[in-house]
Every structure is written in structure tokens, then in C-alpha cells.
């Protein structure tokens, strides 16, 4: 037992005498393996702009898809109505107001257009004519002749169509009458009107007329729009052993000159941005040299924080990819002008004692800092306003103060545009 204790004591003494030496490579190995894990939930915060952009993108995609499906369903219902009315047309004595015939045919044509995805979408609905009996009763009572509140052009259309209406009543078959009415619509680009049972245009009819107004507006060759925008930009780059992140926001005005599907947009945004490099001791010297304010002159810097104020001048060319009713999707590409107004550097030394060194720089330089590429969705409100959400990728073209540290920026923008 005594000898055993001796053996173990000797073992213990000898092993405890070993003093392994510290080498920097061990810390490097630690940082490579565990350096990024210690941040926990906070590590995900810089990724919020990415998440926001992704949500916008998915939302836009979904809205586009949903709108298409919705129009398709509406089209089916309208087609049923149309067939129903054609049955009524076969009873010649039920045709009291000839306009009704034209309207039905026009709706049918519009529905087909909507199915092809080029129109604004049919909106007649099955509720307008609910049954043979209702239709017959309504037409016999002459309710369909009244058009209170309808725009004057409807009356004009009725007058213009008088000739073709007369020609159709002279013939026995409905076929020529249908042709005649289609011709009239195509030639004169008439508006539609569907009567409800009590003779007043329904809400859907009013919307239909409005939609036609939109269509007319779209046919204009150009227009000018102006608006305000609110944007967030951000990017986080995790390198081998250190983290660079940039986040910020900007607010400003812009104007758009549109020509058919194309638009030229320019704006001025005032932005504030936060840039940070963590683990400075692991950051390559060439990165630090780009920082004004002696990043390399001060020992023991743990973090570098830069607050910058910028005037951003985005210029882009946009292309409207699709438009369905009030919803539109567009893509745009351009450049981001960046006038760096002021930068505030903060060098954080948190060991051996908490210390911060502030350094302000007024640089006042202007460069085209990034090329931009983006997509967006817009929603028209009352034909005069447009609410837009877009997401952009900004690729750096050259260094511009702390902006030069960002390899790329991801942005999301909310805009409100007024048409003039």
C-alpha cells in the first residue's frame, strides 16, 4: 500500500511539473472554432435586413400569384353570366334595352382578356343577374334603361351604338348582332355598363368603369411621378475570424419620369449608418488602413464603430414587369451616388480598462459608390397614389469612407408616389 501511494504520488508530482507553453496559434484555433458561437442571439440581429428583404420578395411573389388566381376565378363566374344572358337574347321579346346586349358581349370579351392576363380583369360577377325570372322581370319593367350616376360617355356610347342596335333588331339571328356589337366596341373603345335589377349601376359596375380609366391612363405615353421614400440598408460579413457589419436607414424624396413600361428615377435621401468591425486584432492590416483616425496607431483596440451621415443619390431605370389591376411588379437597375457628409469613429478599448477614443472626420466626398439591382411591387391607390415596396442589392463600385468596407448592401424601401 505504501509503495502504491509512492507510485501515485510520484505520478502526480511529475505530471504536475509539466508546464505547457502558450502559443498564439492555440487562441487562433479557439477563435476559428468558437469565436462566432459566443454571440448567441445577438449574432442574428445584423441579418434582419436580409430577412426583411426576403419577406418582401416572398410577399410580392405571393400577391402576384394570388391576384392572378383571383382573376381567373372571377373570369369563370363572369363567363357563366354571359352564357346565361345569351340564352335570354334568344327570346327576342325580352330585349328591352339594346345596350344590355352590348354590355354582355363586352364583358365576355373582357373576361377572355383577363384570362389571357393582359386586361384589368373582369368584374361582372354572378350577382348581377341572378335568374331567368329576375332578368325577365327586370327587363319587362324597363328598369335597365335608367343609368343614374353613370359618366356621360355611357350615354354617348348608347347614342353611338344606336345604328348597330337597329341593325341587329332587323335580323332574325343573334349572330350578326354579336358581331356588330364587337365591331362597335373595338372601333370606338367603348366602356361597359351592367345593370342591376333595380336599374342602378352596382358597385362592381362603378369599379369597372374606374378600371377602364386606369387602362386609359396606362395608354398614355408618359407621366411624371414624385414621392417620398423610407429605406433600410444593411449587410453583415463574417470573415474568417472577425465580423464586419453595416446597418442604416435613409429617408428622402425622389421623382420618376415614366414612359410606357419604363421609368427613370432619381432621388435624394439623407441616411445615417452604423458600421462596426469586431475583433480588430484579427482584422487584416490592409482593412484597418482604410480607416481614417489611426486605427493602427492605437494599441489594444477591440472594436471599431463608425457612425456616418450620408446624402444618398439613387438613380435608376425601372421596367414594369407586370400589372394586374392595381398591383404591379417592376425591376430596376442603376447607381447609388454617395456624398459622405460626416463620419464619427469610436475605437473601443475594453481591456485592460474600458476606454473609448472618439474621432470625427468631415470628409465631404462624393462618389458613385454602388451599382444597384432590385425588384419591387407597387399598389395603386385611387389612381393617384402608389405604395411601393422594393428590395435592392447594392454592389460596391469603389471605396467611400466606411461605405467602402461593405462588399455589398441589401436594402428594402417603402415608397409613396403621387402621380401628376
Amino acid at each position, binding site marked *: 500500500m505504501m509503495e502504491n501511494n509512492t507510485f501515485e504520488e510520484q*505520478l502526480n508530482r511529475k505530471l504536475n511539473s509539466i508546464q505547457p507553453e*502558450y502559443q498564439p496559434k492555440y487562441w487562433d484555433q*479557439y477563435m476559428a472554432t468558437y469565436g462566432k458561437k459566443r454571440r448567441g442571439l445577438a449574432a442574428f440581429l445584423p441579418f434582419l435586413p436580409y430577412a426583411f428583404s426576403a419577406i418582401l420578395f416572398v410577399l410580392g411573389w405571393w400577391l402576384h400569384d394570388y391576384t392572378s388566381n383571383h382573376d381567373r376565378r372571377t373570369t369563370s363566374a363572369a363567363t357563366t353570366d354571359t352564357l346565361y344572358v345569351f340564352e335570354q337574347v334568344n327570346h327576342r321579346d325580352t330585349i328591352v334595352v339594346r345596350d344590355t346586349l352590348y354590355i354582355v358581349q363586352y364583358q365576355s370579351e373582357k373576361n377572355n382578356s383577363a384570362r389571357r392576363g393582359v386586361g384589368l380583369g373582369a368584374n361582372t360577377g354572378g350577382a348581377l343577374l341572378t335568374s331567368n325570372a329576375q332578368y325577365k322581370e327586370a327587363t319587362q319593367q324597363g328598369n335597365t334603361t335608367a343609368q343614374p350616376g353613370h359618366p356621360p360617355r355611357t350615354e354617348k356610347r348608347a347614342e353611338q351604338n344606336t345604328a348597330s342596335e337597329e341593325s341587329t333588331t332587323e335580323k332574325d339571328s343573334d349572330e350578326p348582332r354579336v358581331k356588330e356589337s364587337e365591331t362597335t366596341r373595338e372601333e370606338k373603345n367603348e366602356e361597359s355598363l351592367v345593370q342591376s335589377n333595380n336599374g342602378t349601376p352596382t358597385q362592381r359596375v362603378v369599379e369597372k368603369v374606374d378600371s377602364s380609366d386606369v387602362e386609359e391612363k396606362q395608354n398614355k405615353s408618359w407621366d411624371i411621378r414624385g414621392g417620398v421614400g423610407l429605406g433600410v440598408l444593411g449587410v453583415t460579413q463574417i470573415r474568417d475570424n472577425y465580423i464586419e457589419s453595416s446597418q442604416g436607414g435613409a429617408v428622402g424624396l425622389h421623382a420618376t419620369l415614366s414612359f410606357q413600361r419604363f421609368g427613370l428615377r432619381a432621388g435624394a435621401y439623407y441616411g445615417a449608418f452604423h458600421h462596426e468591425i469586431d475583433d480588430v486584432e484579427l482584422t487584416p492590416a490592409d482593412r484597418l488602413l482604410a480607416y481614417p483616425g489611426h486605427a493602427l496607431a492605437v494599441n489594444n483596440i477591440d472594436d471599431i464603430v463608425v457612425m456616418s451621415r450620408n446624402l444618398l443619390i439613387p438613380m435608376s431605370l425601372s421596367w414594369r414587369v407586370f400589372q394586374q389591376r392595381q398591383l404591379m411588379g417592376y425591376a430596376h437597375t442603376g447607381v447609388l451616388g454617395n456624398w459622405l457628409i460626416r463620419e464619427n469613429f469610436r475605437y473601443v478599448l475594453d481591456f485592460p480598462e474600458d476606454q473609448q477614443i472618439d474621432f470625427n472626420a468631415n470628409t465631404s466626398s462624393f462618389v458613385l459608390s454602388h451599382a444597384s439591382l432590385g425588384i419591387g411591387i407597387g399598389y395603386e391607390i385611387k389612381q393617384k397614389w402608389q405604395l411601393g415596396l422594393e428590395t435592392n442589392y447594392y454592389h460596391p463600385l469603389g471605396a467611400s469612407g466606411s461605405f467602402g468596407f461593405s462588399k455589398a448592401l441589401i436594402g428594402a424601401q417603402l415608397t409613396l408616389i403621387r402621380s401628376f
Partner: protein
Amino acid sequence: MNLHQSEALEPLITSCINGSRRAQNELYKVAFPYAMNVALRYANDHDSSVEIVNEAFFKVFQYLKNYDASLSFAAWLRRIVINTAVDHYHRKQKALTLVNFPNEETITDQDVNEVHEQMDAHELLYLIQKLPPAYRMVLSLFAIEGYSHKEIAEQLQIAEGTSKSNYHKAKAYLKRMMMEHDASNQRMIKP
């Protein structure tokens, strides 16, 4: 900075808790030799020891806010390194390597003690690292750390009897290797 003076470490530990990477680096530098010394006995080579130490330091920085400053930091760190080594053992080296058990009767305790006295610490460590993992774990936990067989059995998830058996086998195996190593050295000295 002495690792056994917990009061002197307090500012450094506070900075580490606040998330200062530089302070963590400093504590790592100070505590690395001690942690590595412990880890070397449980790993089969130097690289594995560094792995254990780094994983232990990750736990240290993660749970440093729970550290009671009135207690010895060195003891707290030692416990974490040992627990990490045991985790490593469970993850990577649980399978017991079958070895040819040497005949202990042929080696006298007097011979072993003489060899023990003459043997360099690094040579002894080298031989310990050559032990089968299951033997090495029990030997280190019992002979060096002073754990009881019951505690070892709980840690390694084995029977208490197995712990005792493995310890005796480990000691016998180590003695045998020590004698062989000494004989080999003698042959090198006497051509």
C-alpha cells in the same frame, strides 16, 4: 498574473463577462498552461489536448457569469477541463481497446519505483497517453485527481467494479510500459 490568485483575476474576469474579446484572450493566455496540463493526461496526443482545452474555455467564457469569485478560479477551471475531457471520451473513445494484459508478477514494486524516479515527466506523460482510453481515464481520475471509484463510475457510466478493475489494469500496464521504456533506454546507452 497568477491563476491561483482569484482576486487578481477579478478585473479580467469582469471584462470577460462583459464580452471583451481581448480580455478573453488574456485569460486564455494566463490559464492555458494550467488547463493544458490537466488535459494532457486525458488525451492520447497533443492536438486532442488542445481540442479539450479550447472546448473547456468555450464553456468557461459561456458560464463565467456563474462563477463564484470567492472560490478558486483554478479549481473551477480544472473541473471544467476534466468534465470536458470525460465528454470527449464519451464521444470519441468510448470503445475500450482490448490489450494484452501484462503479467504484473514479473515486475517488482522496487524496480518500478527506481524507474519512476529516473523517468522524465514528459516521458511519463507520453506513456500515459499510450494507455488505452478507458484505462487512462480511470488512472487519471483516481490517481491524479483523487476521485473515488464511485464517482468515476458515475462519470464514465461504468460499474464501480469495472472502475477498480480498470485502474489496477491501467497501473499494471503503465508499470510494464515504464519498464520496457527503461530497458529500451538502457539498450540505447549501452551499445
